[in-house]
């Protein structure tokens, strides 16, 4: 099963598993081992040192064999700890699922109770329970389990609420299921991994807690001993005979540490986000591992990409997200990049300033020249000084891309002050000017707003203002209007168009909408499977697309004003970029594909002002140069 192999891949967890397996085995076979009776006192032999004759670990203050007591104690501690964890997990999960699934009043009532229990420092509750029930191992178990129920309940409730609002639960209702069945067959399977994770990460804790109560004399009662009470009894002889303390103490440490290692492994293996390695921290700049030669820039482009290759290395797979992309923008020009999702538009854009998340991203080839200077592999400090000052970005979702806890004014001021040594006051005045530039009404008071207090359109204006903060030469706008409504999109597009003409900005505009490209961009590049398949002046490309993909992509988008009709869909799916076919990536979906298309590299060739990567163009083009 993949779970076990994932667990085994985590070496520390494996160590935990082996140690734990050994301890559990020892505990299981303890009754069969030739050990001295753990409870028989022999005061003549008290405090024998370890490795004395007849005893491996020595004896305690009553002359009892420590090894024997240790193994019996371990048996007891493990049993009690696991029992407490199971009881707490089952009851807590049941409460949490009911509260989370039904919501409303039921939820309110249960969670108030849980809050009440969590208002105690947990040991007070445990002490109160033991005080009421009287000292004893079983009572300590009950206390520890009871005290942990609220933690499980709250955790599981949170997860359940998330699942209960998933669309598949609605679908189950419409498929004729009733609540009880939905809980069992739809919710529970999704909650169980979380319960297992929570349990595996708290078993160690529960063992510590029961040992603690025994240590205080409130758990197991003499002569029976668990690890905690062994430690408690040894305390008075700590100075004279430390080995009686060290033996049980180290045992607890070993057990809990092994369980924690194992628990982390279980969590990593079961948590899908951790499994996909998603919880890695992106570094300050994308890793560069460039093997080939550094291409030289073309023409008078201010920003020029040549043969850029960016890949994602996930485990043993390589995703060629960008497979040799070349384009450039001249000052004041607007270049549109269009393609379906997964075609590599954003990765190309982020590669320019080394903003691709790495790991797993790696730039493996090509060059990015800004005013003649190659930025691929440039020192971090150089990249940083260009970011925002010379090349600025506008991102898609303005709510996610602005810091939620800082006022927009402060975020603008920061953008200015990281590049210019100006006073806070000057920066603030500039920020105000920027908000006015992007036509935000009541700019003065808007500076004091937090992002969540603004509408989507206003937030995106702030995003644009931030990009303009240092008068950059190039702005890269990655689907800046996709998250917005059409009416707001129209406003933002016309704003961008005005600004670029006023300020002579070069804009790289990424979108998947031909209408937007047609309205805003001078030239357009079409991307498919990490490569540019066609490039040229917008009007030419849209009027007479030369690549079969471009033509069919335009044809399958319904256009307003044409009434009800059938659409010309493209069959099949874009290829996965970790498994690209040889030759033309579009060949499996192309109705003109021949054997020639499936073999070898097809180059992006220039035909006058246009460029094309296809053997059988859709229109007559100038001869290749």
């Amino acid at each position, binding site marked *: 099963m993949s779970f076990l192999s994932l667990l085994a891949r985590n070496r520390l967890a494996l160590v935990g598993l082996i140690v734990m397996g050994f301890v559990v085995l020892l505990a299981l076979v303890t009754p069969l081992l030739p050990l001295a009776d753990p409870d028989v006192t022999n005061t003549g032999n008290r405090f024998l040192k370890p490795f004395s004759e007849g005893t491996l670990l020595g004896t305690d203050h009553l002359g009892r064999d420590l090894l024997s007591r240790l193994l019996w104690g371990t048996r007891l501690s493990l049993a009690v700890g696991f029992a407490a964890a199971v009881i707490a997990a089952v009851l807590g999960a049941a409460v949490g699922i009911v509260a989370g699934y039904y919501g409303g009043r039921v939820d309110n009532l249960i969670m*108030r*109770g849980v*809050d*009440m*229990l969590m*208002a*105690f*420092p947990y*040991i*007070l*509750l445990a*002490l*109160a*329970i*033991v*005080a*009421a029930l*009287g*000292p004893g191992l079983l009572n300590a178990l009950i206390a520890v389990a009871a005290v942990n129920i609220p933690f499980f309940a709250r955790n599981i409730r949170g997860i359940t609420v998330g699942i209960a609002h998933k669309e598949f639960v609605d679908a189950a209702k419409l498929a004729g299921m009733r609540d009880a069945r939905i809980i069992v067959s739809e919710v529970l399977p999704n909650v169980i991994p979380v319960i297992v994770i929570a349990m595996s990460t708290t078993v*160690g804790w529960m063992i*510590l807690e029961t040992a*603690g109560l025994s*240590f*205080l004399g*409130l758990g197991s009662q003499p002569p029976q001993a668990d690890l*905690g009470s062994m430690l408690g009894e040894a*305390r008075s002889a*700590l*100075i004279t005979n*430390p080995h009686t*303390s060290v033996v049980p*103490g180290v045992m607890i*440490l070993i057990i*809990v*540490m092994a369980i*924690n290692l194992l628990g982390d492994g279980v969590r990593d293996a079961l948590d899908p986000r951790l499994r996909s390695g998603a*919880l890695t*921290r*992106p570094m*300050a700049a994308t890793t560069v591992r460039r093997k080939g030669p550094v291409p030289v820039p073309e023409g008078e482009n201010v920003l020029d990409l040549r043969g850029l290759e960016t890949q994602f290395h996930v485990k043993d797979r390589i995703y060629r997200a960008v497979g040799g992309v070349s384009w450039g923008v001249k000052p004041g020009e607007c270049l549109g990049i269009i393609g379906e999702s997964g075609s590599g538009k954003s990765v190309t854009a982020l590669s320019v300033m080394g*903003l691709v*998340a790495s790991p797993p991203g790696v730039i493996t080839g090509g060059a990015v020249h800004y005013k003649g200077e190659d930025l691929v592999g440039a020192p971090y400090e150089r990249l940083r*000084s260009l*970011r*925002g*000052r010379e090349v*600025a970005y506008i*991102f898609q979702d303005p709510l*996610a*891309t*602005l*810091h939620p*806890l*800082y006022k927009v004014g402060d975020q603008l001021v*920061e*953008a200015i002050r*990281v*590049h210019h040594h100006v006073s806070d006051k000057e920066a603030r005045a500039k920020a105000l000017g920027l908000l006015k530039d992007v036509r935000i009404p009541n700019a003065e008071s808007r500076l004091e707003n937090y992002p*969540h207090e603004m509408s989507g359109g206003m937030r995106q204006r702030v995003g644009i203002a*931030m990009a303009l903060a240092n008068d950059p030469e190039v702005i890269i706008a990655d689907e800046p209007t996709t998250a917005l409504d059409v009416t707001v999109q129209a406003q933002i597009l016309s704003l961008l168009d005005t600004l670029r003409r006023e300020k002579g900005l070069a804009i790289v505009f990424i979108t998947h909408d031909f209408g937007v490209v047609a309205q805003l961009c001078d030239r357009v590049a079409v991307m498919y499977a990490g490569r540019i398949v066609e490039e040229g002046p917008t009007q030419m490309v849209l009027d007479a697309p030369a690549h079969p993909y471009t033509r069919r992509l335009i044809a399958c988008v319904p256009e307003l004003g044409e009434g009800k009709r059938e659409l010309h869909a493209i069959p099949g799916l874009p290829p996965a970029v970790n498994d690209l076919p040889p030759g033309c990536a579009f060949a499996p979906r192309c109705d003109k594909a021949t054997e020639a298309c499936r073999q070898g590299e097809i180059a992006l060739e220039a035909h006058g002002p246009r460029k094309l990567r296809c053997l059988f163009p859709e229109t007559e083009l100038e001869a290749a140069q």
Partner: protein
Amino acid sequence: MGSYILKRLVSAIPVLLGITVIVFAIMALIPGDPATAILGSYATPENVEKLNRDLGLDKPAVQRYFIWLSNMVQGDFGRSFSLNRPVLDEVLDRFGATLVLAGTSFVLCSLIGVAAGVVSAARQYGFADKAITFVVLLGISIPSFFLGMMMILIFAVQLRWFPASGMWPIYGDRNLLVLLDHLLMPALALAVVATGVVARLSRSAMLEVLRQDYIRTARAKGVPERGVIWRHALRAAMVSIIPVLGIQAGFVLSGAVYIEMVFQWPGVGRMLVDAILKRDILLVQGGVVFVAACYVLFNIVVDVAQSLLDPRIKT
């Protein structure tokens, strides 16, 4: 903000009432006859009956609860039979010592834990991260009472750097230096587990935040990496770290019970354990309610801090 604090204080009243109900209900579970427990099994029936009447135990439970509650509101927590003094006096005497110990540990675990978590996340998979992760794992796996005992053995008995137990020397001055000398070992022993938990959580909170789009925005603006980590990421991560600190305060308070036993620290925890072993129910009740109430108030402070940090919380 003032009205928010007021609102939180008002909403604490039902919680406090709930606490008293829970404590009272648990105590009502006690099997057998408390008077017999107090007087021992050789007591005469008359004495038992008299004590029952004196303690009000002949009345129905609901009535007893309200009497207990109204007395408590007036500052009368009852009398401890084992110490023969008012419960509140004893609790107040002891609570100061616990506060010093737990407060110091809490400050230590917050500062060290968060800093370690941030460094660990910023250097994910680097040497610092691995070292911190290992120490943290050790920290959350070692029983604090065992750690305390080992510290005594090494630093008090072997090296003689610190006194082995107590809060004050039996003879001599009582000043801050002396207190620190006695405090350092127990406070550290107590802080270790909580520091580990805080460091782990801070690390994962930071990792989560560092993947967010607004961090990429900060980098795209040209913010230096140090600013990205400490100003942008930590600020956002604190939103999920602060509630954890609130919970850890409860854990530190809980762990104090063990540490007070090990280091003979004259705090509430030791008092409670003694009271349980002597079956001094009123002292247990009073002590638990008092400490829990303080913890509830502390959590209001946490909530207020959270609302100051996060403008999205409506105050």
